[in-house]
């Protein structure tokens, strides 16, 4: 694509941002005195900050670039990632799971597994999670450097080095607090940087009405019903009726239930932000408060992609074409920035984009730090050391976590397949995890062996399912069918992923129950107090006025989400 020329004012904005990022780390360094301060912000973060950080920790590259790309490729149905996926899961984690995470005083998600089940379940989760965070952070770094190379013509190595050094410095100085503060800053930058883009785009296409009219051309050109790009539910009756290639059951079960709950309820990257909150109520309100801006985010991240494809089809040639002749959807957002924003505001938009990539990295690095130090180093390598020793280890983990991320970024440039394969493996590991937590938190009879072997069985089921099916038009290999035979062909990769998740979850759920019933309980009722629903005293919110209770907030959030689903039906 044609490179964007940016002026002195754009560079100035970028430099001011970098100065602030480092300044925040510098200002926070004197508050880091213990390992708790470094890894959990001393459990002192106010609700609104924890909530916005909970939201932006996930607002990395895949969100801003990926959701824009999906908006262009699938249209309004992309909103299901928010209104069916994320929001109900965030409400569930806030209301039902946070009491156990926060109340158990576990310092990480793997540590909760240790308290609830046993060491081997914790070890399995800690190791896969640590590997996963390093690679996610590496992917973020790679994606940022590739984008800057493509759009601005910056040197790939300089971009990798620059982002790595900046993230290293601010986490090293301020720990989790520094990462959280920068995530909140990034949240406001993304909103303020992308809003003018959306407003200008909407003005250009003639508002929502104009956009829907243009998207009808997009849909009919691609051979679908006219509303396929602008309705979220109407075309879900069969996989062939919509560009995503899924039907409502795969959508609701696969994306809504397994994948989203699996991510928002068990991924330490986001849970860590709520664990840093300053009280139980604050921890429970964190995901609920995050859900309110989250439900409006489709307007910021999906809409630019939809506008881009509408302009691409009706006015011709906005998006650069890939080697196979289809538009390069991943460039939808950068192209829109260059298309509408003049020098000045363009700098702000690019700053927002870079902020999102760097926070994605930082979020992964802080989660890696804590899991490495608490769940691997302290529990397996050198237990019983002083707190200062673990704080030093946390600093060291930041340095080698970032070095490993840089290595992962370079591995991606060399072997594109490795990255695809790793993402696949992680999907296999993550999908069944939610079944383990669900049973662990709500059924006291679940045993350590049941959890561990159920998890393995679920992971294996995911791999087997993936190995026997294929998305339409793909060749056997990484995309599926690596066992040779093709038992079923899905209309799209997305449909295949949803069903892999459903099989993995169900297998883990059933296997955990069966094995638990066949093995002896390894924890007594007394040991499970505060870890299992039936054995934990109910939290009484009665002392709070009704409008401050988490349950009230949850009902409001769910009602608003329902309204959004109906409006864009």
């Amino acid at each position, binding site marked *: 694509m044609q490179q964007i020329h940016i002026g002195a004012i754009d560079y100035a904005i970028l430099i001011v941002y970098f100065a602030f990022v480092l300044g*925040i780390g510098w200002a926070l360094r004197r508050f880091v005195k213990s390992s708790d301060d470094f890894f959990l912000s001393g459990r002192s973060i106010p609700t609104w900050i924890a909530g916005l950080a909970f939201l932006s920790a996930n607002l990395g590259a895949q969100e801003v670039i990926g959701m824009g790309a999906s908006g262009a490729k699938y249209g309004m149905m992309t909103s299901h990632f928010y209104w069916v996926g994320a929001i109900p899961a965030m409400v569930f984690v806030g209301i039902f799971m946070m009491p156990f995470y926060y109340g158990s005083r576990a310092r990480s998600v793997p540590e909760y597994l240790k308290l609830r089940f046993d060491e081997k379940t914790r070890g399995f989760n800690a190791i896969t999670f640590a590997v996963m965070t390093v690679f996610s952070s590496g992917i973020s770094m790679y994606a940022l450097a590739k984008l800057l190379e493509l759009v601005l013509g910056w040197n790939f190595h300089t971009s990798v080095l620059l982002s790595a050094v900046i993230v290293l410095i601010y986490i090293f100085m301020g720990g989790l607090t520094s990462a959280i503060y920068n995530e*909140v800053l990034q949240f406001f930058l993304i909103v303020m940087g992308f809003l003018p883009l959306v407003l*200008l785009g909407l003005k250009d296409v003639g508002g929502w009405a104009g956009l829907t009219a243009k998207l009808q051309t997009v849909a009919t050109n691609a051979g679908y019903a006219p509303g396929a790009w602008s309705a979220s539910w109407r075309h879900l009756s069969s996989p062939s009726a919509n560009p995503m290639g899924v039907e409502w059951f795969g959508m609701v079960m696969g994306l809504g239930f397994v994948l989203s709950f699996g991510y928002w309820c068990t991924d330490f990257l986001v849970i860590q932000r709520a664990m840093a909150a300053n009280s139980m109520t604050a921890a429970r309100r964190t995901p609920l408060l995050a859900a309110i801006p989250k439900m409006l985010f489709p307007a910021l991240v999906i809409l630019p992609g939809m506008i881009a494809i509408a302009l691409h089809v009706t006015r011709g040639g906005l998006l650069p074409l890939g080697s196979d002749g289809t538009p390069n959807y991943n460039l939808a957002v950068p192209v829109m920035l260059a298309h509408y*924003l*003049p020098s*000045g505001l363009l700098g702000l938009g690019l700053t927002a984009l870079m902020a999102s990539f760097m926070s994605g990295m930082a979020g992964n690095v802080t989660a890696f730090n804590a899991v490495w130090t608490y769940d691997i180093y302290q529990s397996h390598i050198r237990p019983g050391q002083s707190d200062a020793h673990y704080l030093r280890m946390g600093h060291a983990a930041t340095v080698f976590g970032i070095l490993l991320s840089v290595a992962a970024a370079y591995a991606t440039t060399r072997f594109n397949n490795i990255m695809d394969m790793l993402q696949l493996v992680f999907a296999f590991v993550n999908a069944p995890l939610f079944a383990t937590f669900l049973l662990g938190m709500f059924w006291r009879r679940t045993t350590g062996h049941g959890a561990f072997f159920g998890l393995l069985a679920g992971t294996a089921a995911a791999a087997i399912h993936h190995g026997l099916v294929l998305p339409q038009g793909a060749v056997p290999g990484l995309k599926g069918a690596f066992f040779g035979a093709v038992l079923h062909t899905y209309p799209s990769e997305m449909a295949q992923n949803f069903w892999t998740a459903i099989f993995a979850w169900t297998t883990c759920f059933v296997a955990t129950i069966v094995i638990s019933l066949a093995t002896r309980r390894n924890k007594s009722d007394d040991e499970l107090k505060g870890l299992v629903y039936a054995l934990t005293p109910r939290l009484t919110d009665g002392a709070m006025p009704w409008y401050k209770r988490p349950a009230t907030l949850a009902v409001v959030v769910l009602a608003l989400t329902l309204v959004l689903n109906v409006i864009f039906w």
Partner: protein
Amino acid sequence: MTLDLRMPIGLIFTIFGSMLTVYGLVSGDAIYERSLGVNVNLWWGLVLLAFGLVMLAFAIRAVRRRHRETRTIDSTSTP
């Protein structure tokens, strides 16, 4: 007590807002062709400036209140 996050957020948006507003005033009309003829730097600069100043006002009020509280505690503890 740690850093009040509203302070750096207020500061950075006040700076960004001022930069864009000034740039919007001095830059010619030519660069606004792509933004549909709207001087977005000026208008959005003012929005950012307002947001930054509101955040700063909250942060400064909180600092003042803390000062006042510590002063009352000091005066009650010394006989």
